[in-house]
Every structure is written in C-alpha cells, then in structure tokens.
C-alpha cells in the first residue's frame, strides 16, 4: 500500500467520518428517545419519565457537542482533501448540504439551548416543543446527507456539461434509487445503537444492585425497541441488498466473495472465507449451497454477477467488505437474539432479575455502533474504485496535495480526536455510571455545575456547593 496523498486523504476521511458518525447516530437515537420520554412525562406525570429525561439529556449534551465540532470538519474536508470532486459534483452535493444546514443544523442548534438549559425558563409545552424540534432536526439532517451520499452510489437526474455535473431533475437526484433504503436502514441503525446503549446502561446498574423504577423503565423500553426493530432492520437490510445488486453488482459480488458463475449452477453462500484479490478466489471458504441464490435472487438456482465479470481495476476490495459485512450481519443476529431473550424474560416475569440477560445486554452495549460502522465500511469501500459510482474515480477526486501536508493533517486529526473524543466518551460513561436520579435536577445540569431555578437562600447554596464538591 502506497502512502501517497490519495491514500492518506482516504485514511483521513475514513478516520474523521468514522469518529463523527458515532455521535450523530447516538444523537438521532437519543433525541427521539428524549422526545418520547418527555411526551410520556407530560401525559402521565409519572416522575420516572422526567428523571430518565434528565439523565439521558446530560449524555445527549456531551454527545451533541462532539457531533457538532467533528461535523464542522466534514463540511470543510470535501474541499481541503477532495477539491476535484467538489469542483466536479459540488453542483449536486453542495445544494443538498446547504439544505441540510438550513433545515436541520440550524433547527437543532436553535432549539438545543432551550432543550438543555430551558427546563425552567419556558413552560412545559414549549420545552417539549423544543425537544421535538431537535429530534426532528436530527432526522431531517439524516435525510439530506443520505440523499447526497446515496446519489454518489446511484447517481441520476444529471447531465455532464463541460466536465461538470449539472443537475437537471432535482426530484430524481434526491429520490435516487438507493436513497429510501439507505435512509431507513441508517435511521433504524441509529435507533438500535441507542437502544443497545440504553439497555447496556440498565444492565450495568441492575447487575450492581441499583434496581430502581427508572432503571427498570429504561431496560423495558430498550428491550421493546430491540424486539421490534432488530428483526425489521434485517428485512430492510435484505431489501437494501437487492437494491445494491441491481445498481452496484460489483459491490455484492465483493461482499459475497463470489468470483464466477458456473452454467446452470446455483450460487452458494460463503459463510466464512478469505477472498484473495490476487488469486481471484475465496480461500478457506465454508459454503452453504443455494443459499446465496436464495438470499440475493430469492430463487433456488438464480445467479448474480461474479467479480471476474468486472475488470480488475473496477473491483472493490472483497477481502475487506466480505468481513465488514459479516460483522454487521452477525451483530444484527445477536441483536435479534437479545430482543427475543428480553421478550421471553418479560413473559416469564424475570426481565429485571435475569443476570445472564443483563450481562448479554451489557456486552452488546457498543454492538450497535460497531455494526453501524461495519455497514458503512461495507457500502463505502464497496463503491470503490468510484467516488461517484460510474462517474468519477476516487483517484481523480483528490486534491493535488503532497503527501507531507496531508500526512501532517492526518496525524493531527488522529492525536486530537483520540485525546478529546476519548475524554468525551469517558465522561459519557461516567455520567451513565451515576445513573438516573429520582428528583428534579438541582445541580450538574448540562453545561452547568449547578442550575438553580432562581436566587437561592445562602443555606441552600452551601448545601449545593457541598453536594457538588462531593459529586
């Protein structure tokens, strides 16, 4: 592997987007969860919902901050590192990004202040409205950025004039063939990742004997989510795969480690193996006959293109996407298992007592995020060597920098991200360890050491200061 400016730019983009996507994924999931919690609190006046809101909103605040600052980087990296791409296709990705900023980023940021700090500054209705606007903003944001990303996978609605992409039909651009599948798949992935994080937190507290109504409630809610959404995600993923087969057959061939078809023979499913790009075969393959045909063509003997049907320079790296795909699917199956186990335990009335279940949930805490990253690696590396499928190669998209300056930037990103976002993740885990408190927040609100409602008596102030010092 040559560490030239192209490779370094790819690593930098992959590194910064991998860190970044974790935060918005949790933001999307938690914002919707918080909106549900606040709605339940307003409807039922059950303080468990309010306590859970104040617990998770702290995590949300830290997570959101990291999402914002790592996201600003993304908006500029298209130019600093991929200027040829920006000049060529900015006419499509630019307006979509502009709409994301206008309809989503501002909405989130505008109502975030009230959501985090306005609990007693505005009425309950307005506060709930703010939470809903933030949650809506996260979903609108996902919609635009996935429209843009999907267009790079399945471009349509454009013409090429003077070596520049010119949009001719915006509806076709936005509603490109892979967009609906990617949008649903990613949104559900964000919900699953968040539900797994919530379930793991509940499992951790229950395992340590911190059995409170709030902890029970969050375990219960997360388990319902997993039970319903994990299987749904598998179905959506299947549709997404069929769509990919239609529009990006090389990606599917690489995912399956499928090199060639024999006349009249069904395609097996290779469970595990090591696709070897040089030898053009999958070594150590463990096959299940017919299953490949069944999954991808929904027929017993159906065939789909093998990698050898594509010129070597047009093939994505099968070794990588074969495995990233299997990591994603494997974790997805474990999520379904966790959801079913939770349902069984609930039916037996042991949901809050089964230590094995709680341990499983704890172990799966990061599984949603790992699966989400693995899925993105699959689809993005599977699009290579193209940056815009069939239109522009990644090698032609990169800014003509020298390796020196790109290397310097990459090292800085790696150092700063690991230190700062590493610290942030530690703080999030620490907040989770504290657990939900069963009273109105009196200190330690988001961005605040103490957040009293109105001027306090000196005694109360002192007591609070002591609490803070001990906390």
């Amino acid at each position, binding site marked *: 592997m040559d560490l030239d400016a192209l490779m370094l730019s790819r690593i930098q983009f992959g590194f910064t987007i991998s860190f970044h996507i974790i935060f918005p994924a949790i933001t999307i999931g938690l914002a919707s969860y918080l909106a549900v919690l606040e709605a339940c609190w307003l409807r039922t006046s059950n303080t468990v919902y309010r306590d859970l809101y104040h617990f998770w909103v702290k995590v949300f*605040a*830290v997570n*959101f*901050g990291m999402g914002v*600052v790592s996201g*600003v980087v993304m*908006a*500029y990296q*298209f*130019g*600093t590192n991929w*200027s*040829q791409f*920006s*000049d060529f*296709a*900015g006419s*499509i990705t*630019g*307006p979509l*990004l*502009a*709409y994301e*900023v*206008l*309809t989503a*980023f*501002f*909405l989130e*940021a*505008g*109502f975030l*202040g*009230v959501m*985090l*700090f*306005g609990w007693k*500054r505005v009425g309950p209705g307005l506060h709930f409205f703010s939470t809903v606007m933030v949650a809506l903003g996260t979903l609108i944001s996902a919609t635009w950025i996935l429209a843009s990303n999907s267009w790079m996978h399945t471009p349509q609605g454009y013409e090429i004039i003077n070596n520049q992409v*010119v*949009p001719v039909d*915006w509806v076709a651009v936005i509603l490109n063939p892979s967009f609906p599948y990617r949008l649903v798949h990613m949104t559900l992935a964000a919900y699953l990742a968040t539900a797994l994080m919530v379930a793991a937190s509940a499992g951790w507290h229950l395992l340590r004997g911190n059995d409170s109504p709030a902890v029970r409630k969050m375990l219960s809610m997360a388990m319902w989510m997993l039970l319903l959404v994990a299987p749904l995600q598998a179905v959506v993923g299947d549709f997404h795969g069929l769509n990919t087969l239609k529009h990006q057959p090389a990606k599917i061939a690489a995912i399956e480690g499928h090199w060639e078809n024999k006349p009249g023979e069904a395609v097996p499913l290779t469970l595990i193996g090591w696709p070897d790009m040089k030898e053009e075969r999958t070594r150590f393959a463990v096959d299940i006959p017919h299953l490949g045909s069944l999954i991808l063509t929904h027929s017993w003997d159906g065939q789909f293109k093998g990698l050898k049907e594509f010129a070597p320079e047009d093939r994505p790296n099968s070794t990588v996407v074969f495995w990233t795909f299997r990591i994603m699917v494997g974790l997805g199956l474990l999520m379904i298992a966790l959801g079913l186990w939770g349902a069984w335990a609930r039916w037996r009335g042991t949901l809050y007592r089964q230590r094995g279940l709680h341990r499983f949930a704890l172990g799966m805490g990061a599984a949603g995020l790992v699966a989400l990253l693995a899925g993105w690696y699959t689809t993005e590396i599977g699009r290579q060597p193209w940056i815009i499928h069939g239109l522009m190669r990644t090698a032609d998209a990169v800014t003509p*920098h*020298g390796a*020196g*300056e790109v290397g310097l*930037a990459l090292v800085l990103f790696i150092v*700063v991200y690991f230190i*700062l976002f590493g*610290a*942030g993740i530690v703080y999030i885990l620490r907040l989770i360890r504290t657990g939900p408190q069963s009273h109105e*927040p009196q200190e330690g*609100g988001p*961005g*605040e*050491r*103490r*957040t*009293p*409602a109105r*001027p306090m008596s000196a005694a109360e102030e002192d007591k609070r200061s002591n609490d803070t010092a001990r906390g």
Partner: protein
Amino acid sequence: MGIDLALLWAIIILFGILMYVIMDGFDLGIGILFPFMPDAHDRDVMMNTVAPVWDGNETWLVLGGAGLLAAFPLAYAVILHAFMLPLIFMLLGLIFRGVAFEFRFKAEPDKRHWWDKAFIFGSFCATFFQGVVLGAYMDGLTVIDRSYVGGVLDWITPFSIFTGLGLIVAYALLGCAWLIFKTEGLLYDRMRALARPLTLVLLAVIVVISIWTPLAHQAIADRWFSFPNLIWFAPVPVLVALAAYYLLAALGRKPHAGPFLLTLGLIFLGYSGLGISIWPNIIPPDISIWDASGPPQSQGFALVGALLIVPFILMYTAWSYYVFRGKVRHGEGYH
C-alpha cells in the same frame, strides 16, 4: 436571464459569514478573554453567557462552507485547497474549545483547569487561523485552469500574520462588549476597563489594514481612491470614526448593551471595507463570482430554500436569545 443568481448567492454567503463573524466572534472572544479572568467562578459565568447559543453561532460557519460549495463550487475547491492547513488548524481549534463547554463541567474539580486551557488554546487558535486565512485570501490565490497552483505555505505572509493577530483583537473586543452586556459586578467592571484599550488597538489594526492593502494591491487602491468611488465609500471611514468615538464615550458611563451594538457596528464596517476592496471577485485577484458560478440549476434550487428558510432561522434564533436574556450571575445558570 432575469435574476442574477450569482449576485444573490454572493449576498447570502456574505451575510452568512458576517453572521458568523459577529456571533461566533463574541463567543470565541470569551475564550480569548479567559486568561484575563483567572477566577473559576468568573469563568463559569463567562461560559454560561454563551453555553446555550454557541453551536447555533458555529452553524453559520457551516452555512458559509455549504453555500460556497452549492453556488460557487470552483471557489470552494480552490480556496479550501489553497488553505487546507490553516483551515484544518482552525477546525482543530474549534474542536478544542467546543468540547470544553461540556467537558469543563464534567471533569473532576482538580482537572477542570485542563479544559480551561483547551478552551483558551482552541479559541486563540481558531481565531488566529481565521484571520490568517482572511489575510491570505485578500492577498490573492494563484489559479491556472481551475486549479490552485500556489505553494502549500503561500498563506504565511506578514500581512496574513497581521490579520490573524488583528482578528484576535476584534473578537476579544466583541467578547468583552458581550460580557459588559451580560454580566454585572466585578466581572463587569473588569470588562469595562479592558474594553477601552481593546478598542484603541482594534482601531490601530483597522488603520494599518486600510493603509497596507491599497499599498500592496494597485486594484484595491484604484477601487477606493478613484473618482467617484471616493465619495461613495467615504462614509465607511467616517462611520468607523463615529462608532469608535461613541464606543469610547459609552465606556466612560455605566453602559449596558451600547458597547456591544457599537462594536457590532465597527466589525460590520471593517467587514464592508474588505468587501469593497475585493468585490466582485470571489477568488482574488481576478476570478469573479460569475466566473466561479455553479450551474444555475444548483444556484436556483438552493436559493429557494435559503430565501424561504433563513427568515425562520433568524426568528427562532432570536427567540432563543430572548429566552436566555438578562444578566448572568455568579452561581446562577439557566435552569
């Protein structure tokens, strides 16, 4: 064609960047002023004055980038290519200070000073490199055949270093005036005392840039000192002098919002001055907004959104500031 889309987009982007400079300017300024206020409680108050609004402020920067990519992809590609390093330094600075907002209150008390330092470093770093990019941008970029062909370090010039330092002064004054507006007591007094020297230094910076740019660039000299432009643009320096005079006068009394509004005026005038110098180029010295325009289909589509949505953004942003109106006191946050 009926509508000059490039012109409208140039106005929107100029407006977006102005909003950014004003709004993130005062919250970056608070980081720049941190070293002057070592007391932990004062720092809590300073941070609390911007905690609910800072990331909305930063969103204007993203709008600037996205708008540029949407309407002038060539300019986006060339400018970001040329200024990769200083822009990445700026982004890293923004990360340092952005995470400090939340992390500061989550750290153990004995470790909190690390996040204060991150906040200070990040604010200085982001501001300085913004100013450097501004200066290097004014100096112009070498472009051949739609590609930047200058060197990796071309952005380092005496002028760009000067504008980097100058922007630190400008943001410090914005932050200072914001704190005069939002605080009281000792903190207020300190800021009021600090505002006067900051104003004088900023005036000196404005004067130096006003002399330096026409001397260095004949085109800028022609723009300002030819007839009848001289008359049209004469109000800019006159208004700068007036705003500075009223600002210094206000600081002598017991001011409230006055210094902040007057500083906004000063920044706006300085910004207009720079705009007048390079208009209508989007990649100085000679690529105009029309040369760098993306396809009208892109500009038109995004324009509809911008014109429809920006008024709503301004409305709910104003509402958010209204919710958190009034002075922020020691030991009192926003709940």
